[in-house]
């Protein structure tokens, strides 16, 4: 099962960054995210797998596909970037990957011997909102403020400017 998921992730992520058609790249990204959520199920994090499915696969990919449809033609192929750039980027990526893999294989990981904790919804909710040692209320608040700010920023950036501000920007161009 792990081999199936990891093969899907590797193949589709390579296809995502090399596909010449932009809509296909988005669909390959969707496959990568769904198989990642399968990995989370294998690791017994059911809540996070559900979040991954709904937020990544359901939200972000749909948002990306919408913006693709708004900004480019579906059948449009983009020209391949120069072979020089491709080769040097591949060298950089391969070097980094090989170095990291050597380090990972070299390191001796030692697990704790304490008993595993059962991750259920009650525990997740309680520790998200607790102020104790194991509580996460501060990052929770920070992330909620961040989400609010991102929402406001997205609306402000993407809305059409009023005639006055558009005139101002034209003035600035001249």
């Amino acid at each position, binding site marked *: 099962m792990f081999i199936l998921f990891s093969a899907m992730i590797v193949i589709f992520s390579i296809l995502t960054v090399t596909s010449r058609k932009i809509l296909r*790249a988005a669909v390959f990204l969707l496959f990568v*995210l769904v198989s990642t959520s399968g990995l989370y199920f294998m690791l017994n*994090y059911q809540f996070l797998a559900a979040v991954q499915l709904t937020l*990544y696969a359901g939200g*972000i990919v749909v948002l990306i596909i919408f913006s693709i449809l708004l900004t480019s033609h579906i059948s449009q192929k983009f020209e391949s970037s120069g072979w020089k750039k491709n080769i040097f980027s591949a060298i950089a990526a391969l070097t980094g990957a090989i170095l990291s*893999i050597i380090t990972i294989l070299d390191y001796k990981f030692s697990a*704790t011997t304490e008993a595993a904790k059962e991750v259920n919804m009650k525990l997740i909710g309680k520790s998200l909102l607790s102020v104790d040692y194991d509580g996460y209320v501060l990052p929770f608040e920070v992330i909620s403020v961040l989400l609010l700010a991102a929402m406001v920023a*997205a609306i402000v950036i993407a809305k059409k400017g009023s005639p006055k501000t558009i005139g101002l920007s034209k003035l600035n161009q001249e």
Partner: protein
Amino acid sequence: MNAGIPIQYFLILATVMFFTGVYGFLTRRNLITILMSVELILNSVNINFLAFNRYLYPHKLEGMFFSLFVIAVAASEAAVAIAIIINIYRRFTTINVEDVNEMKY
């Protein structure tokens, strides 16, 4: 359920995914595909967090909560980036990074 799979397999998988994202980030010239590469990178980091949490510290929940926060950051980042991309498209009628250079003086 995950018996028999060493933690190194998860880490190598995340590494491959991360550097695939880096490769896409360096070679792509369309803003949306660059955004997709960034999503790949963030996703591979999540796999790392969860593998470490499950294999090395199963009595704690740090990795799980941090990947939850990474997912939230990725979502807000995607929303803002797509707003910026649509604004750029409205102004330049292209989202190719090499054609959008008007703020350079």
